[in-house]
């Protein structure tokens, strides 16, 4: 269902008109589709509303950049707004104050706190710390046993002593950590509902007693609209310093990230991407942004196209595409642009659904091929470049000699050109994203 929504959004964006400014009336359907995509991605309703309002304002206010179509322009605004909301530079986990630094992990039931504790411990040890883990979950059956086992399998120190209350366990664990020379104490707490007054009071008391160096909220990336309510309650009652987003190895769009960060202003420090203790990654707002929109890394492709593509050339390319007079001359320009944008295979990977169904070589010749193709095209007459069907056997031999290549090379170039032209026609008709490859005429 999500794919259908993002496809429709892309279609709508392509249809956007506007020369100097994006047209207000034309923008409405795009915003409607964007709303659908965001809601389907589990971004909170209120957050979506605010977000759309600011996108509307910015998209209408800005001049359309010459190198972008109006549709791309809107995507760019969306991307900028989203990345700004999702937080910019990466925030490191900062451990200051007296040792052992207490790191408190809190969250709802089943969010993934215990697994995250082991992952964090593993991460910190690799950073040169000496962490100790302790579970203060005295409620869920075998919860403490679980932490002991994950700590063991990650080869991390864990506090084994027993006591009645979370406070008593934490006290004893702190003493043990100090005695054994650990500089970090990771406290794994019981999962609790934010509406459970008693349990929230318990967490608040624990926080007050230990004044943790860092309190992290583990948020399930599969969560929906209610995620903001729970994280806000934890922030208000317990106090939070950051977020860890769990279970991102699934196929949820992760819209909760946008909701949580924009409502609380808290940084996301890590994302969990698997059940093993090594499956913890640093957070990349741009990746989450494109995940939420379901557009692969098309967004960053636009950015790159924007930086690198010569506007004039782009306009020409677009013109010839529109008139379906795509010639070898255009092909050469296109190859040049593509080269400026970086390794072609990387660019191809970034385009969604480009994997299996397209002959990659047609659009992505190697660097050597590129150089050779340039020489071959240079050896052609303007007529030949405009109308490749002129190039018969004897012309091929002439061109090969002139460019210091072989007839096979010339044949290869012509074959790839034909394929590229065919693909571009297809994309042009379907209006698929890969047009971005050829310069900013897609969308």
């Amino acid at each position, binding site marked *: 269902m999500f794919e259908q929504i993002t496809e429709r959004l892309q279609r709508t964006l392509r249809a956007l008109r506007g020369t100097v400014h994006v047209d207000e009336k034309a923008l409405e359907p795009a915003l409607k589709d964007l709303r659908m995509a965001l809601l389907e991605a589990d971004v909170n309703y*209120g957050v979506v509303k605010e977000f759309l309002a600011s996108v509307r304002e910015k998209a209408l206010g800005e001049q359309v950049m010459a190198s972008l179509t109006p549709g791309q322009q809107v995507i760019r605004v969306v991307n900028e707004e989203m990345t700004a909301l999702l937080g910019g530079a990466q925030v490191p986990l900062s451990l200051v104050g007296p040792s052992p630094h207490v790191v408190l992990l809190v969250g709802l039931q089943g969010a993934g706190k215990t697994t995250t504790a082991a992952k964090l411990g593993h991460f910190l040890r690799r950073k040169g710390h000496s962490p100790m883990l302790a579970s203060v979950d005295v409620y869920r059956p075998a919860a403490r046993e679980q932490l002991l086992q994950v700590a063991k399998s990650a080869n991390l120190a864990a506090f084994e002593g027993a006591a009645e209350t979370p406070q008593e366990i934490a006290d004893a664990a702190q003493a043990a950590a100090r005695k054994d020379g650990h500089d970090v104490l990771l406290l794994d707490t019981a999962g609790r509902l934010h509406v459970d007054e008693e349990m929230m009071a318990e967490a608040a008391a624990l926080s007050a007693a230990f004044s943790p160096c860092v309190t992290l909220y583990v948020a399930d990336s599969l969560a929906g609209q209610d995620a903001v309510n729970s994280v806000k309650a934890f922030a208000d009652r317990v106090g939070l310093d950051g977020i860890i987003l769990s279970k991102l190895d699934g196929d949820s769009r992760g819209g909760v990230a946008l909701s949580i960060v924009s409502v609380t202003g808290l940084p996301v420090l890590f994302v969990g991407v698997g059940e093993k203790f090594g499956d913890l990654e640093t957070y990349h707002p741009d990746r989450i942004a494109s995940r939420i929109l379901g557009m692969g890394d098309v967004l960053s492709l636009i950015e790159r196209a924007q930086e690198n593509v010569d506007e004039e050339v782009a306009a020409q390319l677009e013109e010839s595409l529109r008139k379906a007079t795509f010639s070898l001359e255009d092909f050469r320009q296109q190859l040049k642009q593509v080269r400026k944008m970086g390794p072609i295979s990387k660019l191809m990977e970034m385009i969604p659904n480009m994997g299996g169904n397209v002959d990659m070589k047609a659009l992505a010749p190697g660097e050597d091929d590129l150089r050779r193709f340039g020489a071959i095209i240079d050896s052609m007459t303007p007529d030949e470049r405009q109308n490749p069907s002129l190039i018969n056997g004897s012309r091929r031999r002439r061109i090969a000699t002139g460019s210091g290549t072989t007839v096979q090379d010339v044949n290869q170039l012509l074959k790839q050109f034909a394929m590229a032209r065919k693909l571009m026609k297809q994309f042009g008709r379907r209006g698929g994203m890969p047009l971005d490859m050829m310069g900013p005429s897609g969308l």
Partner: protein
Amino acid sequence: MGILSRSLGRTRERLKGALQKLLPSEKVDAATLESLEEALISADVGPITAAELVEGLQEAAPTGEETRRLLRESMVRILEAPENGNRAEPEPGRETPWVALLVGVNGSGKTTTTAKLAARFQKHGCSILMGAADTFRAAAVEQLCVWGERLDVPVVAHQSGGDPAAVVYDACAAGSARGADVVLIDTAGRLHTKDNLMAELAKMHRSAGKVIDGAPDEVWLVLDATTGQNGLRQAEDFLTHAGITGLILAKLDGSARGGVALSIAHRLSLPIRYVGTGEGTDDLEPFDPEAFVDGLLGEAS
């Protein structure tokens, strides 16, 4: 950010009984319909299903009272439609054990729900056996064994790291041998995107059938009520790979309303069987469509 929080606060207030504010005899305007749609989306019903539901109302152009009735009716109808004749409750005195498999993503509430079901069926006079087929997660077996001890229900378990299909086999065999009425099998959490883990479920399913003809009788997807639209994907994939026969909605005691279950029932024609309302073994209730709809619309008591 301040503006945002305030607007969220307003949103919540507006949602408090979007239906209650409808004046009985007055014509319903577009703004009211929008706030109904908002209520549904905020309850995780999903934008598409929410739009469909509200669209139906718009055509009827009803008064407040009719709106209330129509919307509730159409939602209850969706939820009641998938009754597929399966009895969700086994009865005591069976010839061969009735077998249920509990499946779902990590942390959704499978183990706790297994224990809750054991407690429930035990109260109905059934003799129960539980199978600890989560051989993957640390201390998962211990967790189920603690429940088994508390409920005085035997647990069949292997070593952690063992083959879960073998646990299923042994649990079904032990259930048959001991004349148990019910065998409940707790499985490891898995994201529906992991093909190898999903294939493992299919194997467990076959394993049960090898011991007891027609087993498992039920395969229940335990869904966390906080789940967003990804829940539909989960249900689709667990349906394909594990042949789920129904849903159990856990953690409905929080403030999440579990609306994605409505979309799942609607699109996949799966019944919702029980709801979980706490962490104790008594915190399980049979699914009540009317009460659930009231919850979705912010009318819960």
